[in-house]
């Protein structure tokens, strides 16, 4: 069984005539250690899909499993525990708490753990050193550059050593050079065994991943895996479009 399994995920906002279906029956499997980019136009449903993968947005229909656990059958508290233990988040706008120092922001996922203060601090400092921000822990987020803020966000996502990192447009607010630095950082993190699922609309960023899920109109339009040199595509999923239609769940309209 796959490490991450999404089956027929649907997300509909609103009801009746005002209902908008953002995700229309998306299914995929992700194995441990994969680096997956979710691509698509604005409004295609990719961020909604990522928020559902982050246990932040309950799907209208479908199932979502991680490590054999049915995430949306958990109650709110267990779902929070799941986020803390399994997930690290990197957001486009960094989402750092402005009144906490860089070090304290990195320590946030550790706050509700039983570990003592010294241990938490040591882990946060280690995470900061991994992203090249040693010595900047005492600064406030407003006192460092955008690139550094994104590094802080990556450090915060890693500090708890979760198996999965979810990134939503991690380079959306950064210049080209800084974007490259962040992507190289994510690639390094992935190299250490962390599964990364990243939403992006930038082909440059997507090139760092080894698999691309392309979303169009709320449907999974394409699932492309990087084919290792010297090996021909054997499966549809290795070779491009695999799912050009959405499955119907009886909810909302269906794109054919």
């Amino acid at each position: 069984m796959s490490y991450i399994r999404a089956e027929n995920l649907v997300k509909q906002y609103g009801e009746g005539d005002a209902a908008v279906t953002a995700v229309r029956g998306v299914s995929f499997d992700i194995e441990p250690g994969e680096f997956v980019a979710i691509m698509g136009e604005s409004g295609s449903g990719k961020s909604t899909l990522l928020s559902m993968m982050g246990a932040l947005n309950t799907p209208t229909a479908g199932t979502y499993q991680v490590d054999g656990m049915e995430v949306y059958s958990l109650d709110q508290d267990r779902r929070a525990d799941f986020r803390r233990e399994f997930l690290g988040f990197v957001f486009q706008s960094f989402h750092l708490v402005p009144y906490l120092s860089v070090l304290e922001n990195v320590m946030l996922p550790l706050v509700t753990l039983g570990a003592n203060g010294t241990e938490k601090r040591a882990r946060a400092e280690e995470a900061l050193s991994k992203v090249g921000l040693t010595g900047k822990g005492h600064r406030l987020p407003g006192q460092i550059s955008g690139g550094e803020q994104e590094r802080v966000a990556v450090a915060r996502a890693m500090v708890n050593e979760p198996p999965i990192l979810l990134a939503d447009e991690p380079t959306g607010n950064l210049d080209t050079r800084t974007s490259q630095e962040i992507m190289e950082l994510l690639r390094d993190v992935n190299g250490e065994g962390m599964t990364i699922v990243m939403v992006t609309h930038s082909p440059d960023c997507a090139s760092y991943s080894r698999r691309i899920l392309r979303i169009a109109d709320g449907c999974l339009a394409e699932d492309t895996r990087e084919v290792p040199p010297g090996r021909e595509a054997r499966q549809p999923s290795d070779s491009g479009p695999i799912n050009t239609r959405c499955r119907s769940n009886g909810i909302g309209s269906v794109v054919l």
Partner: protein
Amino acid sequence: MTLKDIAFRSLRRRKARAAFVLAGLLIAVSTAVALISLVQAMNHDIQHKLEKYGANILIIPRTENLSLTYGGLSLGGVSFEMQEIREADLRKVGSIKNAANIAAVGPMVLGVVEISNQRVLLAGVDFHAVRVLKPWWTVEGAAPRGDGVILGSEAARILGLTPGAGLDVGQRRLQVSGILTPTGSQDDHLVFTRLSTAQSILGKEGRVSMAEVAALCNACPIEDMVHQISAVIPGAKVMAIQQVVQGRLETLGHFRKFSYGVSGILVLVGALVVLVTMMGSVRERTGEIGIFRAMGFRRSHVVRIVLLEAVILSALAGIFGYLAGFVATRVAFPFLVGSSGAAVAFDPLLAAGALALALSMGLVSSAYPALLAARIDPNEALRTL
């Protein structure tokens, strides 16, 4: 870093909101403290004045005759037909339940004697008890020793006696030690001597005509004491002299109710200020709460952060509210009551009460905003950033 650190940092970040919540709590707590302190101080002041007022319980022999005196004018001699109280019975007053509240018991024997062809009312008293029972007495001359007497101002004028003069009462030769300055009471017409001397002259050994009792009324149940004394001296009529006091206590009672009412309203308004400000604070922090939830904070962790902030502000409001109320009372007391502010003392119970009030107000009025914060949908919250 802990939830407490987050709460502290958040308060420091939002100083204006924190100051507003603090002000709401502080005004309510300090006003309640000031009013309650003022009532307590006024109560204490009245009790203090009551003690100065002297005797407040009168023990007289039970009689079936109606009084024939009015406004100092006597219309008959029935007062001399009264029965007497045995001195031994009077000692039982010291055994009542509230005996600790008794400051002094002043027995008095009364009888008519003839001095220089004038019929005079001789009063035998315990001069030690008199100091407590009649603190308004001022004696010109010396305090009586041995067979010395003190004359009321009118008695001295009519008898033509001055301190140092001698006077013959029956077979006894007594000496005038001092003369009372006018008191405006019946004391001005009397000749006072020691109880035993008067009993001997009047032939009333072991008996007294009446007794005055000074009860310390700070929280003492004067009516209960009247009943207790009546029970130990069944042959006597025991009365509380409390008309004047009662009036002042009733006024104080009205002021107390008014103070509690005003305090209650201010506490309610303060709680509403906290509620509205905390609601605003939670709305302002929606995105931040989304980040916390994404980082794995449970709903209960979010509730604890909001309530911790409320506890920090409430504790500050409790401490400073008490101090502000205490200082305000000390400053206002002399103007309001006309006495010195010395009666307003530090009250640990009131200080603890102020802290408890502030904490209750802060926690109760922050409970709903805290629940609101916990119910914020993390996904929606993150979209606000």
